[in-house]
Each structure stands twice: as C-alpha cells, then as structure tokens.
C-alpha cells in the first residue's frame, strides 16, 4: 500500500536532488542575471514561456483567492471512510465480556429465586448465559454501562432489588399486577433495577416485553399511521412494533413456544388455527404493515382469560418521554399526545391499572435524569405517591408530618392524563448503596483486576464518600473509570 507515496517521494523535488541535478552552466546564468546580490539566488529553473496555443488553466492561476468552500479536494489517500451507520454502530456496540479480565472465582450464576432472597444482599451474582442472550435481545444492556470491563456480566444484588423482586413475586403469586415506577437521582442504577427485574422475570419464565428507550416512540423518529376505526384516533408505529415483535420473539423463545393460542385470528393474513404456539404468532409479522395486528393478536393471546398464561413483565426505560405530548402531528397538524400512540397507550393503561393482566405480572418503568423532557405532572405525581407511601409508614422523617405536595394553582403545564395514569402506582426510590454493598462492588472490581488497590474499609469509605454517599455510577467514575493505574 505504501508504494504510491514512495513513488511520490521520488518525484517530489528535494533540496539535495535539485542542487545535484542542476546543470553546471546554470550558476553562470544566474550570475549573469544578477552580478552582485545579497540575497540567495533562486535556483528553481524558470518555466518556459508557452508560445502559441491556448494557455492552460486560468490566466491568473496561483494568484486567485481560493475560498475554502471551493477548494479542490486534496489528492491523497485518506483511507476508507466509514460506511453509513458504521460510526453509530461502533458507538452503540455492547460488549458483554472482556477476555483480559481475571475471572472471579466466587462468582455464582443467578438462580430463579436468588434475586428475591434476602440472604443474597450485597452479593455480586453473574447473569446466566441464556439470560444474557435474552436481555441482549430486548436491549436491556446499555452502551454507557461498564459490562465490557469484566469477564462476564454480573449484577450487585441490592436491598432495593430484593424488595422489588419480592413485590414481583407476590404479585405473580396472587395474580395481581405490580405497577412500579423506579425513580432516583442520576447514576443511582435505575436502568439496572429494570434489568434485574427482567432477569428475575426471565429466570422465572415470565413473558418480558421491554421498551428500551421510550424516546424512540415519542420523538417522531419512527413511522406512524392512524389506526382505522378508532375514536379518538390512535396511531400505530408499524416499524417499531415489528422490531419489538422480533425482540419479544427472541427474548421469550422458550416461554412462547410452550404457549398455545386459544382463538383463531381471522384478521391476520396468515391463518392461525387454535393451538398454534405463540412463537409462530409472534413470527407471523414479516413486514411493518402486518406488525400492529400481529402485536394486538399476541397481546390478546397473552392476556386471554381462563387460559393458563405465564405472568407478564412490561418494562420501559425513560418514563418521562411517555408522559408528555409527543412530537408527532395529526393530519390537522396538532401535536399528538403520547397516550394516543397505541403502543404507549397500552403501556400507560397497564401502568395506570386500566388494563389488567389476568395471570398477574408487573409493569415497571424507570425514569431518566439525564435525557428527560420536563414533565411537571409526572414529577408531581411521583412526589405525591412517595409522600403518601411515607405517610402510610408513619413517616421516616423525625418531623412526622409528611406533606403531600399539591399542584401549583398558577402553573399551566400540568397534564391530567398523566396524573390519571400515575394516580395509584408504587414508587421505588433508588438511592446510593450502603457501605456493605459498596465493599462488595469494589471487591468484585479488584478481583477482576480492574481496581489496583487493597479493598479495605478505608478505601471503601473513601470511594463511598467521594461518590456522594455510594451512588454506584459515581463510584465507578471514582474508582473504575479513572486512568490512574
């Protein structure tokens, strides 16, 4: 590959070459031009004046102002430019293992009951391989998380995790629906709580439907179309739903293949006789046009009354995007409320309790702090639910009287539909980890060879304090992601 440039090197005039290759008569010629001079002689041979024929290029070439916009591209090999989408794929790639990391000997895989067992508090446990695949299929891992630093993906079992898993288990046992919003400060591990919920669901053979980023649904970046015969008009998002169906299919392959349909679905183009596995139904959509009816059919099968269905976990990340007016426009050029998008409406109904899951399950949504539109109604409703829960407990604060925040009567931006959805949800506030959990985390890092320090109480307390009281993301920043080796 280096041949052309080497050839160019040979062609390019260099000082030595020029001097040595000069004809002997040329100094004399120079001397004739200027017999005595204090400046160096211009040794470059003069161009021969063209006589006759049209002059090449512009008359004043070389003296013309060349603006950057019109400058001709520099000759030279720039190498291959990345193909469209390649840069984004590199940015968004998810690496789940690092062969250079040291395997941690005591690491055990998660079992079905492990996440609900209080004995596992402050333990790091690995995700089993099949769960990894399932989670990867439904895009539960995010590129900002540090999975790529360790031998295999593992999660810290926190008190909140055990609390949530127990709530999920209780709901499934009683065939109720757990409606939970995971809230908390930046980097406290809200998305990881959702991931753990999904892992728990997969381990216990639930059906998991996960919306990895709600903003993909409401920021008008995917196609939409009105659903006929709906009043008020609802909108489907066929391309996204097709993607979601494929994700559901891959993530829940084992469970769906065991469930059989109870009714024929004449509205679908393919014939689906009863007692077809749901996996086939989910795979019936090959094109976006068919995606929404297939999704509806799948949903009706999953929530069929009387049939023995597994519990369902509906999870989403980035709840605020769901609780705002979307960026889509109706034919009258009015903004469409997010809850008029059919898929979002299904999730919101389930979260609000309007849509019951007959075999029980959970609806878990996590808020985001970094990429979230301002949603005063959601913030207020979550604060209210939290205050009410604290009041029910008798109030953890010493003052005793927990005041439920009320609407500001002079503020206009509240949304009644949002408040109706969030009227009866439970709120799980995720805070920083305690020192025991922090120690488990740091020991895992050190045992993986990612933290070159002795993990004693001093180091743990230092990082714990540095990270604002054990905020896990900040602890990673303080200990794991620093370049100090």
């Amino acid at each position, binding site marked *: 590959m280096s041949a052309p440039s080497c050839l160019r090197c040979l062609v390019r005039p260099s000082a030595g070459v020029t001097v040595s290759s000069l004809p002997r008569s040329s100094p004399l010629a120079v001397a004739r031009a200027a017999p005595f001079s204090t400046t160096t002689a211009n040794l470059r041979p003069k161009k021969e004046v063209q006589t006759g024929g049209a002059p090449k290029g512009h008359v004043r070439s070389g003296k013309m102002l060349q603006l950057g916009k019109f400058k001709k591209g520099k000759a030279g090999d720039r190498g291959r430019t990345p193909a469209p989408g390649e840069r984004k794929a590199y940015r968004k790639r998810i690496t789940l293992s690092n062969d250079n990391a040291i395997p941690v000997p005591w690491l055990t895989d998660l079992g079905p009951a492990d996440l609900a067992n209080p004995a596992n508090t402050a333990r790091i446990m690995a995700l089993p391989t099949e769960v990894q695949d399932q989670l990867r299929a439904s895009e539960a891992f995010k590129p900002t998380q540090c999975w790529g630093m360790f031998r295999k993906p593992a999660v810290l079992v926190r008190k909140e995790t055990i609390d949530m898993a127990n709530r999920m288990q209780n709901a499934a046992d009683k065939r109720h629906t757990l409606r939970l919003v995971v809230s908390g400060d930046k980097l406290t591990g809200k998305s990881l709580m959702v991931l753990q919920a999904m892992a728990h669901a997969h381990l216990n053979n639930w059906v998991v439907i996960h919306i990895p980023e709600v903003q993909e649904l409401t920021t008008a970046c995917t196609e939409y179309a009105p659903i006929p015969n709906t009043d008020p008009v609802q909108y489907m998002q066929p391309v996204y739903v097709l993607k979601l169906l494929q994700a559901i299919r891959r993530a829940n392959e084992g469970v769906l293949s065991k469930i059989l349909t109870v009714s024929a679905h004449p509205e679908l183009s393919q014939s689906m006789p009863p007692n077809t596995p749901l996996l086939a139904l989910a795979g019936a959509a090959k094109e976006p046009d068919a995606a929404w009816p297939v999704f509806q059919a799948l949903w009706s099968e999953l929530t069929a009354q009387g049939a023995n269905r597994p519990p369902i976990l509906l999870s989403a990340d980035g709840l605020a995007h769901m609780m705002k007016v979307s960026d889509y426009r109706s034919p009258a050029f009015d903004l469409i409320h997010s809850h008029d998008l059919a898929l979002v409406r299904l999730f919101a109904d389930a979260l609000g309790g309007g849509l019951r899951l007959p075999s029980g399950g959970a609806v878990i949504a996590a808020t985001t702090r970094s990429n979230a539109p301002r949603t005063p109604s959601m913030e207020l409703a979550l604060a209210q639910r939290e205050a009410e829960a604290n009041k029910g407990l008798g109030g953890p604060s010493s003052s005793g009287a927990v005041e439920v925040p009320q609407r500001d*009567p002079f503020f206009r931006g509240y949304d009644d539909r949002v408040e109706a959805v969030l009227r009866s949800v439970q709120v799980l506030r995720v805070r920083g980890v305690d020192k025991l959990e922090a120690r488990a985390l740091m*020991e895992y890092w050190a045992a993986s060879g990612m933290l070159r320090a*002795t*993990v004693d*109480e001093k180091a743990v307390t230092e990082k714990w304090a540095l990270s604002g009281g054990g905020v896990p993301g900040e602890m990673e920043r303080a200990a794991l992601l620093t370049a100090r080796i």
Partner: protein
Amino acid sequence: MASPANLLRLCLRPSRRLPNLGASAARQFAHRRPLSTTQWRPAPTPKSPDDEASEKAVDDELEKAFKNPGEYFNSLISDESVSDEERRLAQRMLEDWNKVPPAEQQDIEQLAQDVTKEAAQLRRPVFVKRDSFWHVDEPDQDLITDEVGEDDFEEDDIMAMAHAKLEEHREFREYARIAVWEMPLLSKMAKPFEPPTEAEVLRFRYTTYMGEFHPADRKVVVEFCPKDLPDLSEAQQLKLKKLAGSRYNPERDIIKMSCERFEHQAQNKRYLGDLVNKLIETAKDPTDMFEDIPLDTRHHKFKPQIKFPKEWYLTEERRKELEGQRKQALLLDGQKRTEGALIDGVEVIQHAMLHAKPVETVPVLRRGQRGRR
C-alpha cells in the same frame, strides 16, 4: 473723606449685627416683568387714598424736620390740630434749637442733607439688567459676605472674610453652649418605651432627612399582620391576603404598603389608614369571598433556611462513636487479612499473570498476500 455722612458710615460699619443696608435695599428687585416690550408702569396700588396720603405726609414731615428744624417747630406751634402738650414740647425744642449757634445749625442741616443724598442710592430700587448674562449683576444671597466693596481696605477694621470666620466661630460656640447647657435638659422630656398594645396593629415607618428637603421624606410605609386585626375570621383574613396581592409576604405573614402620592407625610399616612380600613371592610363583605381564587404567592421567593445538621456536629459522643467504628473496621480488615480474604487488586493481577498459560505461538499460514493485487 471727612464729611459727616462718611463719619456716620464709619461709625455704623463695625457693628455688623445691624441689618445691612445695601443687602436690604438690594432685595427689592423689580422682577415683575422679565420680558416686555412696553414701558413699565406701577400697578395701581390697592391701598386706600387715606393711607397713601398719611404715608406721604409722614415722609414729608420727616424730611422737613431734618432739613430745617426751626421752621418745622414753628409750623408745629402754629398748627391747630396738635394738642397743647405737643405744642408746649415743640415750643421748648424750638427754644433749644434757637440756642444752638448758627454755624452749628448750618452744620447739622448740611449733615441731614448729606445723609439724605447718600442714602438716596440705597433707597433706589435695583433692577436686574435685562440682557445681563446669567444675571451677573445680581448679588448672591447665599454668600457669607456681601461682595460690595469688600476689597477696599480702609485700615480701620479686619477684612470681611475674617469677619465671616469670626461669625462662624461664634456659631460653633453657640451650638457648643447649647450642647452643654440645654441638651441635658432634654432628658427630662424622655419617655419610657411602651411597646405597641394589642389594639395598635399598624406599624408606620417615616423618613426624615433632618429638616432638609428630600423627595422621599413624604413617603410613609405601613405594615400589619392580618392575624392581628380584631374580629376577622379565617376566611376574611384569607380574603384580605388575596386582596393585598403582591403586598402580602407569605413567609412573614405581613402585608406591607406604602404611599408617597401626596405632598405631606400626614396626607400619605391618612391615605394609608383609610386604605387599610377599606381593605378590612371589603374583607368582611360576604358577597364574594374569592373562594375560587387560590392565594397567589408567585411574587415571593421562599428562601430555604439551610442549617448545619445537628447530627453532623462533632460532639464527644460522636467522636467516640466514630472511633469505635474505625476500630471495628480495622479489626474487620485485620481479621480478613489473616483469613486471606482481603482482596488486593495488584496481588490479584500478579497472581493471574504468574498462573496464566503462556500464549502459544501458533504458526499461521498467510495466504494470498502477494496475489491479491
């Protein structure tokens, strides 16, 4: 120089306490018509003709008496309108006058004439020249000396500036005397402070600039707490707060209003008092209690009172507790170290490097390198 009029002037001059003739004369400016194209004529005086006549008669009489006392006394004696007593007095004075030698009589008459002549200038009204630049000819009233002829030193007195300095000194001493002798007497007038009673709910604030004129000295501010107002129910108090709008401070629970609309403090205060009465009256009016309107506090920014948490104070107990915790942590670490459960990142890496399988270099067949291009 030695004229009697000049002598009189010299006698008068050291006594600066006397009203300054020049200054008093200069005050009568004819300012009536600053711009006019017609000749000035005095307005017809509203005085009664009797007054005018009597004034003129007095002036004439004075003039006569000073010009020629002998003739004046004679005319007085021959006058029938005067009383006998006055006539007798005039008779006696005429006899005295006649006793004065004629030369002296002449001198006195001359003196009278001179004084009149000298004083004529002063008595003449001074007009400001119409076309003078910035009224340069107008004497300045604010100066401590009259600038008229103050630079001509006649070797019989100190300079005008020195007089002014002396005057200043006198003023200092006057105030010093007041401070020493009179001010202590003020303590007799002192009253003990009485805090406002329950009935006095309005608190007024005034501003004084110690007698100087200031545009803000008329301003009056009133503050009151709606809770303090007698016989107002809760609902009425709330309505009062809503009526007060942005004048209500929800943090201090105080309504504060001010007025500087009128010229005098008393007027402003009266207006505020009336306004408060009107507010209370409206708040008590049950026709519309504004129940549908929430109390608006958008104008007020609530400042969170941040205090150092009590739990963070490093008391003796807390110190002991922390020490205990540290000891416990050290014990825990020591125990782990002896057990070999303490994890050291560096050791882990070294151990892993030692026990790592050596990477076997597998020969790889590289094909098609040459033939590709």
